[in-house]
Structures are given as C-alpha cells and as structure tokens.
C-alpha cells in the first residue's frame, strides 16, 4: 500500500516540496477486486481479503487503542516505566543492598516492603487509568457508522473499529467523522459540506469542505461500486492544515486533492444532510490522533525546587553516613586490640579491619538512614495533586451554566503553578470579549449614522446580562438552589425572545440543547441579529431602492442616483455580498435555497473567458442568467480562499491547471435534476427566516446589519450571490472571484458583475489602515477630487472616533473594473494560479493588483462586548500582582479603548506608547522611553516601589507576530507565565507546535473564572503543596536525626534502637495520612478573603511559603526536635535497666506525637477529617505495636520485641516521657510562630486574622464584592499602630483600602509608578516577518524582567471557550542584570539599558 519513492508518481508539482522523500500512500476502493499480480504492492485494504491473500498489511485500521498495557505486558512494562524515576531506582537499590549480608540492616524481605508498596500503588493507579482508557476506547470503537458493503451493495451499519482504509463511509448531519475521509459526494448541490472542527482546534465556526473535483459535477447519487480511481496521497502526518495528493482516474486523468477535500476524524458534519467519502487514513494514522500526544507531564516550579532540596537531602544522607562510617572505623580501631567481650568478630573468627568496617558501616548507614529521602513524598504529592485537580474540577463556582461546562484540568501536575503565575498573555477577541460582534454604527460617504436606537438596544442587553450575572455566579455559598432557579428563569425569557437560536456552536451540551430546539447557527443571537436601523440611513437606502427600481431598465441606472446615494447603495451591496456567508433556511436545512442552473463548463483561457463574456444579456431577476458562463476553475480557487480563513494556508491553494479538468463534462447533468431543484425553489416559502452561516462573527454582523436595512442576502452559490431589496426585488450578482480574508492582507474582496450596470466591480472590505492606503489617489484640482478628499478625511475622523469608542472598524471600498482591466488581471491571476513555483506569493501579488485604486464607500463600527466580569477580573488580577499582556490584532485606538474599558489601563497611569515602523525606529523609541523613565524615576525616587511595566498591549499583531512576541518573551524572561486564548486565532500565539494543538493545560469556560482559578485555587494549591513538601522534609529529617544521634551510643555500628518494623512502616503507615489530609484540604486563608484581597496572591509569586530559607529553617527545626526527642528519653532512661527496644519504642511514640502536633501547628483549618486521621494514626500505631509485640515471641530474631509495648503501657515513665517530650520539642516552633503572628505577621496571617475577626463580614462575599469595598469601619479602626508596628506594610496602606473595590481599582499612582507600556509593532512588509524578531530581541527590555516561558495552547476542550495554560519558566529566578544598574532601582529596568548600546 505504501510504495517506495521510486515507484511513486508525483501527483502535482507542489507536492514535491515538503514530502519526505516522496513517500506516498496509495488508496484504492475496497470494493474492487484486488488488483492483478502485476501490481502486488497496491492492494485493497479489506481485512478478510487481506488475510486470505496473506499479504502483510501496514495500514492501520480504525481501531482506537490508547491503552498502554495488555494483561501480559502490564507488569514488565509498568515496572520498566516506573523505574524511569530516579527515586524508585534509589529505593530499590537501597532495598537490594539489604540482601548483601555484610551490610544488611533489616530483614531483606521487610526492607523491600515499602518500595513494593509504593510501586504497587503506582501500578494500581496506572492500571486503573489504563482501564478507563480501555473503556473509552471501547466505547469509541463501537460507535456506529454507515459503511458501504460490497456483499449487500448498500450502506450498512458498522462499528468504527471495523472501518478500513479504502472503505466508503456515509455520514449524516451532526455525525462525527470516524476517520480521515476524502469527500466524494455531498448532498449539497454544490458539492460542499460544512464541518465543525471544535474537537480538533477549538474553533467553533464552520468550515467548508469540498467534494473532490470531478465528483462534484455528478448529479446522480455517487455509487461507490463505480469508483475505480486510485488515490495517492501523503503518508500520515500530523499537519492539520495540510493535505496533498491526487486522484488518478481510470483514464489516466489526474486531479489534485487538497486540504479542502479532507474530512478529519473528530470533526462534526454540520448543515449538510449527508456526505460520502473514502477513508484515507484510519485509526492512529488519522491526523487527529497523530496530533494527540497524550497528557503532558510538566514539572512545576515547586517540584523543581523540591527536587533540588531532595538532592540536598541526599547530600546530607551521604554526609551523615560518612561521619558515621568514620566514627565506626575509629571505634573499631580503638577496641581492636582489646578483644573486649562485646566485640563480635566475623564468622571465620578474624576481625575486620577498621577501614573495611567503616565501608560496611557506610553502606549500612545509608540503608538505615534512607528514610531521609522521603519515599512517600512522591506518592503523596501525586495523591494531593490528584485531589486538587478533583476539587478544581468540582468547583461549582467555576461551572458555567450557559455552556454547561466546568473548568477542566488537563495537566494533572501543575496545579500549584497556578499560584505562582507572574505574567498572563491574553488574546482579546473571544477571550476578553464575547466574540459577539454587533453592528454598532457606520459612516457612509462621509456622513455618520450614529444608530442611537441601536446603542440603546445594546445597552438593554447589557442590563439584562448584568442582572443575570448578579443572580448567577457569586451566590455560591449561600443559597445555590434559589439562584439556579432564578437564573434559569432569566434564561427562559431570553430563549423565547431569541427565536430559539443559539449564539455559538460552542459546547457540546449547548449543541445538544440547540439541536433539540432547532437547527442552530453560529453568531446569530438576537443581540447580533436584531439591529435597529438608523432612520436617516434607512430612508436613504429605501430612496436608492425606489429610484433604482424605477431606473433599472435604463442604460446606467446608478447614474440616476446622487453620488452619495450611489455610495449608500454600493455600501450596502458590499456589506451584503462581500463576505463568505452561506444562506440556509432553518426549516429545510437539508437543501439550501438553491436553484440549479445550467452547467457552465469551466473557462480555462482568456479567450474562452472573453468569448463567453461578451454576449452578455444580464438581467436582474432570479433565473435568467443561464447563458453566462462562469469560470469553474476560478470558482474553485475562490472557494479555496473561502475555506481557509486562517493565516497560514491562505494562499496555499494551487490549481494544477496543467491537467485539464474539462473531462468532466456536462453530460452528467440531467434536466430532471434541474427541474427538481427549481421546484424546490418554488416551494420555498418567502417568509421563512433565512439563516446565515458565517465563518467569522464580523461577517455575520455586517450581513445582519444590511438586512436591517432591507438589503437581504438571500442566497449564495459558488458563482452567484443574490440580494433582495423591497422594490428592486432580487438582484443576482455573478460572483467572479472571492479573494478571501487573510491576516496579512487584512482585507477581503469579491469581484462581481453588477446586474444593474453590467460592470465588473470589486468590493473590498478590510482594516482601515490597509484600505485607506489603497484608495485611488484623488487630485485636489477638480471638485470631485476635493469632495472625495473631504469624505476621506471625514471618514478617517469617524474611524478614529469609533476606535476610541472601542469599536472594531472596517472600511468598505469599491473599484469598478473595465472589462479590459479585468481580462488583463484575470490572465495574470490564472497564470499565478497555474504557476508551479511561488504561487502563493504570486496569488498574493495578484490580489494586491486587484485591490488598488479603490473608491471609499464608508466604514463600519462593530462592537465586540467585553465578557461579563472582565474588568473586575483584570482589575483583581492586577491587584494580585499579575502582569497582563494583551496581544490583539485590533488597531491601536480600539485596543487602547478596550484596555481602558477592561481596566487593563488606568486613567491615572502613565501610558508609554511605542509606535515604530522599523527596527531602528523602534530601538530609538525605546531608548527615548528609557531616558524618559529614567528622568522620571529620579524625580520620584522616593515613591518608586515596584513600578514595572504593569501591562503591555500589543496591537495590530498578526497571529504570527503574536507568536513571535510570545516566543521572544519566553526566551528572554524566565517567569511563570500563563497564556489564555479562545483558540480561534491564538493557535499560533499559544501553541508550541502542532503537537500542542489539542492539549491545553486548563480549560476555562469564561475569562472571569480565571480570577477564581488563580487567586483562589492557585493560591491554595501552592500553599498546600508547599507546606506539605516542607512537612515531609521535616518529618523525615527529624526521624533520621533520632537514628543518627543513637549512633553516638552504639559505636556508630548502624544499629537502631527503633524496631525495623517501625522504621520501615513509620513513613508509610503511621505518619502519612494526616499530612495528606492537610495537603488536600487545608485552607490557609478562607476563600472569600482571598477573593476580596487579591494581593494575597503575591505570596505565591514570591514563593513565600517555600523558599530555600524556609527549607533550611525547617531542617534546623527538625534537627532540634530530633535532638530533644532523643535526649529526653535518653536522659530519662539513663543508667537504667531498660533494654534496647523498650527504650526505642517510646522514642517512636514520641516522634509520632511530635509529628502530629507539629502538623497541628502547621494546619490552619481543622476539619473533622483532620481529627479523624490524626486519631487514626495514633490508634493505628498502638494497635500495630501491640499486635506486633504480642504476635510472636521468638520471631524477628535481631529485635525480639516481644511484649515490649505491653510492658511499656504499664510503665508510668513511658507516659511521662511521651507527654513531655513533644511539648518540649515543639515549644520553640509554637513560640516563634505565635510571636511572628503577633509581631511580624505575613499578609496571609493578617488575612487569616481578619477573616477570624470579622467572620460575618466575609461570609457574604457577594455583598462585599457588590459594594466593591471592604468594610468601611476598617478604615477607622485602622488608626494607629499598624504601619508603625509592621515594617512589612508599606506607607501605602491607607490607600490600599479601596483596592478591594473593582470600581475604585488600581494602585494609587502616588505610590506605584505604574506604567503601562504599549508595544506597537507594525511590520512594513508582510514578507519579512523575520526581521521583526531581531527588533524584539535587540531590545533587551524583556530580559531584565524576570521571566516568562512557554505557553500552552488552546483547544482540546474543544467547546469550552478558553483555556489557560499555566507554565513554568525554565530557570529559577533570574539575577537582575547588573550591567543595568545605572537605571535607578528595579522600577525601570524594563526599559532596556543594553539594547540601545547594542543597536547603535
């Protein structure tokens, strides 16, 4: 099936470029008899036949198998994987050391127990995971699908797993593609179908796919039995945006296959009744699965820090063992000559040399002291993280009712990183905003129409939304039931208003609901649809309409209009047709509103075009354009533009014109089909509401806007667009070309033939910055030119106004082409299309040639509302010390306005704007900036606290630039960063490569949930885990300390006074549960306090809980405690007749009690679970001890602890020691904790005290946040003392009061010199994105902050709107560049020192 390169024929020139050594895959229909002996390599893929022939088959079938293990392979494979962990290897090594007779400290079997226990737990977990994977695989494998059966000659139901490459599959609407399928037939008469790729890339808009050329023209139903062509395509790869191949028909004709022909596994068929296709890649060779690399295991910052400390512990262990070994050597040496009674020679009677003894002692000590490396730590951390993930997933306040989705954690082991984020990168559109584009106002021909009624309408939605919001999300703790009820009632109201349509095809639940209600359409909420027209403009439009209706049959109908009205008319025509919106009818979704026209054979040459074009007899009206021949191949390329709105594949499409496609001739079109289609059209009720399927919300917004002005888009075919006006009736425009939107050109155009004037018009819609530059130069000599100039300047003013209002602006322009011009352009365009090399570039140039000399019609302002709670969230996040970077493609004014609206920028902040058109300019600007800031900094030296760049706004950035910014930041800064985006346009910004497309770390339903995720859960996760890790270190060090001190009394012989059973199981059984519960459940600060005081988040950023210093303090305390716990029993039993284990057992008991009490000091919240586990631990210890000590009188030879515990329980000294020792050991810690809590409380401690002092205030977080201010009385209570006694708090305390209020947000400018740096990069030439990178990297400004790193990606939880990706920087804290010390203080470091030097 997969042939070697030699035997492969290249399907088309473009395919040569990236194919790996030309390796291709050949697919044939499975329905055909196997090919003869002359071609044994290419065989059919049908399973039975394959087996019969005994031919080895390399193609994967569609069975999904994501399990790692089988029953047989589980044990070896799992063990193998577990031993990839150094810790496991270490523990096993230690356990095996016990088998060496000379050094064994414990019974070998017993020593293996904990390791086996840990391994077993992990193995069990892996097994369970694998089993759940197996179950889900099974479920997927047994999904049903219609597959064509050769035997039954019809489509029969098969399981997904039974599908093979070469099978023909038929799918109905809303079904999911089971494999990668080449589209051969669609119920759509145009051979199109729509798919939703949300499962793959998170984009919820519909994408168009096309039947393979040569099959779309078939009118009769596609019959798989007649399919004899051979498909050659690439070998399976993971590039979602690329597919190349060719189909070779029987007659030797070839046709190219493109991405537009391929339906990817995991996508959903939408708006199309049924499609048939042949399976190209199946199972694990599908692009979806090749892209899925499974869950990512990142290592969190905390974990890296911990691993570093584990290494310290190893070092400590080695030191202790060495010390002990030396001691033992000396001891042996000292008594060597004396032959004392207690001296035990080796078995052969000789005595060990001191050195050998020391070596043995060293190894034995390592075994005895192995507990220092906490074996249970790793397992405990995994358990705690799993529980944290569970709790985050279960948080009802992170649940979004609207989309029925809750927050999802995909990365299981970086939850605590959420508590340490320093930078947030956010996309704007769809992430901060709702991605509901609403037409807001427009200007036509220099006249502004403010659409006040429309503004009021939007305001009403805003109110309704905010009411809704008040009811829903915050009520969490109080009365959930009630709030649900009222919330739903609000929504019901919305539903009835909304004619049962749905905003997005977003979440699957929503999709389900929507499909229950009706067919859903993207971007068609009532808010987006029901636009209130401006009366003035409406009047003008209808005036146009009327006068044109009168003049329609005259020579130049448009000439009868005044220039302004003519512009108005063109403006609305452009709004209506300059897009790729597809019209569907909701009640008959299976057939488009469609009249089939006579076949037009494709045009291949200019002559052909001219020949056909001249006898034009164009009329308006619906069905009389039959004679017009449209250029089929052009349409093809047009549609390819349509379906690739993303940046990369824009001009990818290449037509291999070398192969004439006219082979598919008109004969297959039957007249019946036409009649049938016409009938359908007749039946079409006029009052049916039309649905617009738009690829982007902007387009939908404009079409809906035009509809509000009675300029209704009624149908769009691949070659025509029909517009209906009240008086004019239906106008059908011949669609000659569509030059799709791309992010580089930032515009799109349609080339049409105007039915009224019979002229060829180009309508262009695009970003104002681009379109304004493409306008026809107007001379200021004649009046018209002056008028035009005036119009332009007016329009520009309005555009600025719109932008200042935060609207997205688009310019609409028109160009009238003469036939000669068009013919000339067409020729070059066709050449470009047919050019084998550089055709993307050529097509791009071709588009530029067309979109020039434009005539400005007007501009629109589209509003994209902020999501609920975005300003509050951003304000809180900023208070939390997070630096937020927004990367957007909007123009500067719009972006700045939105930034103010969402509190990214404050009005009292200084904003530094950098606009540069080149590297040099940019560098120079930055340099100036630096000096400016420097001077300011000097003036305000006393005030500067930490004013770095507070927020950065990058506007006008293409996705490519976004990704470059991010990459740069990642490479230069080393901080904890998080990237958030909604997937539609952030893939290139966020993703690291194709692999990441489907894997994000967290998926959040709405932006505002980020606040709770970070500030609450992130903080908790971090503080819990940090404390737990510290506790484990403490626990093990303290325990090992006890053993170590004993060595001084036993000649460093590595004996232990603690029975080996306790020694081995202590960590695992007796002292493991309570810290786990604390690690899972402890809330260092109550939720409401955390949320009302976001600045508490900084403790995580500053690593306050777990610093190297904290670690060493912790270790010192552990040493002290072990010393106390050893010496008190020692002294208490000094010179008594106590035996070894009767003395050791109290020490274990004391240690256990000390651990629990220590944990008690560190636990901030005591739930019943904490009490129970603590009690359980003590009980378990005594039970085990009693049973063990009673079980066997003569077992466990070296220790023989028979009846020890029982005897101890009758000994008062035992109780007296156990009572006093833990108290004595913990006194210092308790004292210093409370002292610090009183004298130098940290922010967290203050918050805890605050919550305690005013529990009532904080139990109603909703009220607090609604009022936006912390208790009023606190300001007065404050009065004295605080600032005096607490050096940590800054003089700014009084001004911080309002910081809790979203309204009065922001840090006072008197304290922080908060600057928002806006970074504006404008690339001059799109073809030179590379130079911009140096621009950035030359500017070292980033490098002096501390760090940022990679980001995550979008998608996967496909239908949730946003995902966040918390991530770790690659290094630890970065040293500030000392070379920059010339800049005063830390504040201004952001503005480069070295960059200027370097660039000059």
């Amino acid at each position: 099936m997969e042939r070697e390169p030699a035997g492969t024929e290249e399907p088309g020139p473009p395919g040569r470029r990236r194919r790996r050594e030309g390796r291709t895959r050949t697919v044939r229909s499975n329905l055909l008899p196997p090919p003869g002996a002359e071609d044994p390599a290419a065989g059919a893929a049908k399973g039975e036949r394959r087996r019969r022939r005994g031919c080895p088959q390399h193609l994967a079938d569609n069975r999904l198998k994501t399990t790692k293990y089988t029953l047989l392979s589980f044990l070896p494979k799992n063990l193998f994987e577990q031993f990839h962990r150094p810790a496991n290897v270490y523990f096993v090594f230690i356990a095996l050391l016990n088998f060496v007779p000379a050094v064994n400290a414990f019974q070998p079997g017993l020593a293996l127990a904990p390791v086996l226990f840990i391994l077993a737990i992990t193995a069990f977990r892996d097994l369970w995971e694998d089993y759940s994977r197996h179950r889900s695989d099974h479920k997927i494998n047994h999904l049903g699908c219609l597959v064509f059966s050769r035997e039954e000659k019809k489509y029969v139901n098969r399981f997904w797993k039974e599908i093979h490459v070469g099978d023909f599959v038929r799918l109905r609407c809303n079904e999911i593609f089971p494999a990668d399928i080449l589209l051969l037939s669609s119920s759509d008469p145009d051979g199109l179908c729509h798919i939703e790729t949300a499962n793959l890339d998170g984009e919820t808009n519909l994408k168009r796919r096309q039947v393979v050329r040569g099959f779309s023209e078939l009118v009769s139903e596609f019959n798989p039995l007649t399919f004899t062509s051979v498909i050659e395509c690439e070998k399976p790869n993971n590039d979602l945006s690329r597919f190349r191949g060719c189909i070779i028909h029987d007659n030797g004709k070839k046709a190219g296959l493109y991405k537009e022909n391929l339906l990817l596994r995991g996508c959903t068929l939408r708006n199309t009744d049924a499609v048939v296709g042949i399976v190209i890649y199946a199972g694990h060779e599908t692009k979806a699965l090749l892209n899925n690399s499974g869950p990512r295991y990142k290592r969190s910052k905390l974990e890296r820090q911990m691993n570093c400390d584990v290494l310290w512990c190893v070092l400590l262990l080695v030191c202790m063992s060495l010390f002990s070994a030396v001691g033992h050597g000396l001891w042996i040496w000292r008594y060597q000559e004396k032959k004392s009674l207690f001296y035990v020679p080796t078995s052969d009677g000789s005595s060990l040399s001191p050195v050998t003894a020391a070596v043995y002692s060293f190894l034995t000590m390592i075994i005895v002291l192995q507990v220092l490396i906490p074996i249970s730590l790793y397992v405990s951390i995994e358990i705690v993280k799993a529980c944290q993930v569970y709790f985050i997933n279960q948080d009802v306040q992170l649940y979004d009712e609207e989309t029925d989705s809750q927050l999802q954690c995909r990365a299981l082991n970086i939850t605590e990183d959420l508590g340490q984020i320093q930078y947030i990168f956010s996309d704007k559109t769809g992430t901060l905003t709702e991605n509901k584009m609403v037409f807001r106002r427009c200007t036509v021909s220099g006249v502004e129409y403010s659409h006040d009624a429309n503004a009021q309408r939007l305001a009403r939605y805003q109110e309704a939304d905010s009411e809704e919001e008040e009811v829903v999300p915050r009520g969490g703790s109080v009365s959930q039931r009630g709030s649900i009820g009222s919330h739903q009632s609000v929504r019901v109201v919305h539903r009835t208003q909304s004619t049962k349509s749905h905003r997005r095809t977003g979440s699957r639940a929503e999709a389900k609901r929507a499909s229950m209600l009706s067919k859903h359409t993207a971007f068609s909420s009532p808010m987006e649809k029901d636009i209130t027209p401006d009366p003035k403009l409406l009047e003008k439009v209808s005036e146009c309409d009327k006068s044109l209706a009168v003049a329609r049959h005259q020579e130049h109908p448009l000439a009868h209009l005044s220039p302004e009205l003519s512009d108005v008319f063109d403006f609305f025509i452009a709004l209506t047709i300059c897009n790729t919106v597809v019209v569907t009818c909701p009640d008959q979704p299976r057939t488009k509103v469609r009249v089939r026209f006579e076949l037009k054979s494709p045009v291949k040459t200019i002559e052909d075009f001219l020949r056909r074009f001249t006898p034009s007899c164009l009329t308006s009206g619906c069905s009389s354009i039959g004679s017009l021949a449209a250029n089929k191949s052009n349409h093809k390329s047009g549609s390819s533009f349509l379906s690739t709105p993303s940046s990369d594949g824009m001009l990818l499409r290449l037509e291999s014109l070398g192969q004439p496609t006219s082979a598919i001739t008109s004969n297959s079109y039957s007249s019946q089909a036409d009649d049938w289609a016409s009938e359908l059209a007749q039946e079409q009720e006029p009052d049916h509401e039309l649905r617009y399927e738009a690829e982007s919300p902007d387009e939908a917004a404009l079409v809906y806007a035009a509809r509000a002005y009675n300029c209704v888009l009624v149908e769009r075919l691949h070659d025509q667009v029909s517009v209906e006006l009240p008086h004019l009736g239906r106008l059908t425009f011949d669609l000659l070309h569509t030059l799709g939107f791309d992010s580089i050109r930032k515009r799109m155009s349609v080339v049409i033939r105007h039915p009224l004037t019979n002229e060829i018009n180009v309508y262009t819609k695009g970003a104002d910055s681009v379109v304004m530059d493409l306008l026809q130069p107007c001379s200021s000599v004649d009046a018209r030119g002056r008028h035009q100039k005036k119009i332009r300047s007016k329009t520009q003013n309005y555009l600025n106004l719109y932008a200042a209002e935060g609207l997205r602006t688009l310019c609409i322009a028109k160009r009238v082409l003469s036939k000669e011009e068009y013919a000339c352009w067409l020729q070059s365009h066709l050449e470009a299309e047919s050019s084998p090399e550089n055709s993307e570039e050529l097509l791009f140039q071709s588009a530029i040639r067309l979109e020039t000399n434009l005539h400005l019609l007007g501009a629109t302002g589209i509003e994209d509302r902020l999501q609920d709670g975005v300003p509050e969230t951003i304000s809180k996040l900023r208070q939390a010390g997070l630096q937020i970077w927004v990367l957007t493609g909007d123009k500067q004014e719009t972006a700045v306005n939105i930034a103010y609206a969402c509190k990214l920028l404050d009005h009292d902040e200084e904003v530094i704007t950098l606009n540069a058109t080149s590297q040099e300019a940019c560098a120079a600007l930055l340099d100036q900036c630096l000096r400016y800031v420097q001077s300011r900094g000097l003036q305000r030296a006393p005030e500067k606290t930490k004013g770095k760049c507070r927020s950065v706004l990058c506007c006008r950035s293409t996705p490519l630039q976004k990704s470059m910014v991010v990459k740069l930041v990642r490479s230069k800064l080393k901080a904890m960063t998080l990237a958030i985006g909604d997937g539609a346009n952030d893939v290139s910004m966020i993703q690291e490569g194709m692999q990441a497309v489907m894997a994000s770390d967290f998926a959040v339903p709405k932006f505002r949930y980020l606040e709770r995720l970070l500030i609450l859960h992130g903080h908790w996760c971090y503080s819990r885990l940090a404390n737990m890790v510290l506790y484990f270190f403490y626990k093990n060090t303290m325990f090992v300390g006890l053993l170590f001190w004993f060595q001084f009394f036993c000649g460093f012989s590595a004996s232990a006074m603690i029975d080996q059973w306790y020694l081995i199981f202590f960590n695992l059984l007796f002292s493991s549960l309570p810290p786990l519960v604390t690690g899972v459940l402890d809330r260092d600060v109550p939720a409401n306090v955390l949320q009302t005081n976001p600045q508490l988040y900084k403790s995580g950023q500053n690593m306050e809980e777990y610093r190297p210093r904290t670690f060493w303090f912790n270790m010192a305390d552990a040493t002290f405690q072990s010393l106390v716990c050893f010496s008190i029993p020692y002294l208490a039993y000094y010179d008594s007749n106590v035996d070894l284990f009767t003395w050791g057992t109290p020490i274990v008991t004391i240690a256990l009690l000390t651990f629990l009490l220590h944990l008690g000091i560190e636990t901030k919240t005591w739930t019943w679970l904490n009490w129970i586990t603590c009690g359980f631990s003590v009980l378990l210890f005594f039970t085990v001890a009693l049973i063990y000590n009673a079980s066997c009188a003569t077992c466990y030879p070296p220790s023989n602890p028979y009846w020890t515990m029982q005897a101890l329980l009758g000994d008062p000294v035992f109780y007296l020691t156990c009572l006093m020792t833990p108290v004595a050991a913990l006194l210092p810690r308790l004292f210093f904790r409370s002292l610090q809590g009183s004298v130098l409380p940290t922010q967290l401690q203050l918050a805890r005290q605050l919550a305690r002092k005013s529990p009532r205030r904080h139990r109603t977080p909703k009220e607090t946040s609604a009022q936006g201010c912390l208790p009023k009385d606190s300001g007065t209570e404050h009065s004295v003392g605080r600032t005096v006694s607490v050096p940590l708090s800054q003089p700014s305390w009084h001004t911080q009061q309002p910081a809790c209020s979203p309204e009065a947000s922001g840090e006072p400018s008197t304290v922080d010199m908060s600057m928002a740096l806006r970074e504006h990069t404008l690339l001059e030439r799109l073809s030179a994105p590379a130079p911009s990178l140096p621009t950035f990297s030359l500017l070292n400004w980033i490098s002096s902050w501390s760090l940022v790193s990679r980001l995550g990606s979008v998608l996967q939880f496909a239908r949730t709107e946003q995902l966040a990706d918390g991530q770790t920087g690659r290094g630890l804290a970065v040293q500030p560049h000392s070379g920059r010390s010339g800049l005063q203080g830390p504040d201004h470091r952001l503005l480069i020192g070295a960059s200027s030097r370097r660039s000059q």
Partner: protein
Amino acid sequence: MAMNYNAKDEVDGGPPCAPGGTAKTRRPDNTAFKQQRLPAWQPILTAGTVLPIFFIIGLIFIPIGIGIFVTSNNIREIENPSKECEPYRRNEDKPIAPCGAIANSMFNDTLELFLIGNDSYPVPIALKKKGIAWWTDKNVKFRNPPGGDSLEERFKGTTKPVNWLKPVYMLDSDPDNNGFINEDFIVWMRTAALPTFRKLYRLIERKSDLHPTLPAGRYSLNITYNYPVHYFDGRKRMILSTISWMGGKNPFLGIAYIAVGSISFLLGVVLLVINHKYRNSSNTADITI
C-alpha cells in the same frame, strides 16, 4: 502514541440525537466537601491565642516535675564500687547453646552480700534469683528444649558458649531457673539500650514490716570475678536500690518537667507582654501590600 485521545469528547460530542433525553448538566455537586467548605476549626497562632497554652503547660508540668523529683529522691541507692548467632553458632563442631554474641558475653560474676554482725560472722543476705526477668520472657519467650529427664541430657550434643565457664544447664541448681529459663540469662538477653546500663541482678526480699530489710551495719560484698572489663576501660558497679513505680533513681524526669514547665511559663509571660503591646494591631489587623 496517542495516550489520551479524548474519548469523552468524541462520544459526548456525538450525534446529539435523542431529543427526549433530559440534558444532564455537568454542574458539580454543591456539597460542602466538594466545594471545600467543610466546617473547620481555624486556630490562629498569635501571642494572644497561644499564650494560655504556655501557661497551661507550665502549670501542669511544674507540679508533675516536682512530684517526680520528690518520688525519685525517695528512692535510696547504695552504690558499691564495683545478634544472632554468627559468629558464635558452632564451636568445635558442636552447636553452641545458647548461641550468639549476646549470650556469649553474658555477665557471669557472682555477687554475694553479707551482713557482718557483732559476732563477726558474716550473715549472708538472701538474694532472690527468681522474679528478676519479665514474666512473659520467662514463661513465654524462653523455653528449655523438650524431652529427656535431666536438663543435661536435653542439652546433649551442644557446647557452652566460648566465654562461659559453665554450660547452660549448670547455671543454677533450681530446675525452674536453669537452662534457657535461667533468669540471669533472660535478663542479659534483653539487650541494654545504652552503653551505660544496669541489669537487675537479685532481689532482696523484705521479710516483714518489723525488720528492716537491710538493717544498719557493716556489709561485705563477695565478688567472684569472672567478667573482665578493665581491658576495654569498662567499669562495673553494684547498686542496691529500692524500686518504686517509676523504676530506679533518676532525677532527670522531674527536673526536665520543672524546666520545661518553667520555660513554658516564661515564654507565656513573654507572649503576654507581646500580646499586650501588639493587641491593638492584631485587633485591627488588615492586609496591606
């Protein structure tokens, strides 16, 4: 390998056909546990909240310490100047009984105490040999080999430990205190924990309340010196001690209790001062940046 191809997505996102099915939401349960709202006691460690603990510790520990100290002081002591089997498993091709290094190093001096009366005839003080080992050790843990009539026959085929003078079946004449169940042996087999240790040697029984157990007078100690310690600088002592509920004389616990209690009390005072000084501030505790 695609390990986590999200099956649920495919399945859940599948044909949302069944219109009748009630939409099951993914709303998480609003339980106190899942929402992390479990009621909890939240102690806050500040001088104010903690200082009672210090005082309580002080108030409890000091009396205990005094009690212990006093008890310990009532204990009167009269000091007199005084592993497994390998490599001690076999000797001269016979198994050693009892084997092992611990048994080999058993203390085997004999101590006899005499009261030198007026008639200058030393009166031996009766030293009870039995009752010095743990009951469980003597009755459960240690057993003589079964069978045979005499102990000697039961230990036939074994040899004595290298350092011993007598074989194990000749440790005592009392058959109930001979062989492995010899209490001196059992006591020795409970390995001492620390280098300086005591072993219970004999009990001096009080005959009646009327007569003092050891009446005032001159005593002589007769030591049969078998156990050499001088060449590893060891020392031997014989201690005559009364015993109480807390074992032998050790003033440490009492002192430790008093010390810890006092320290705690002192720290409590410190915290009291601090609390007084900082009370205002902690009452108006507020979070600042």
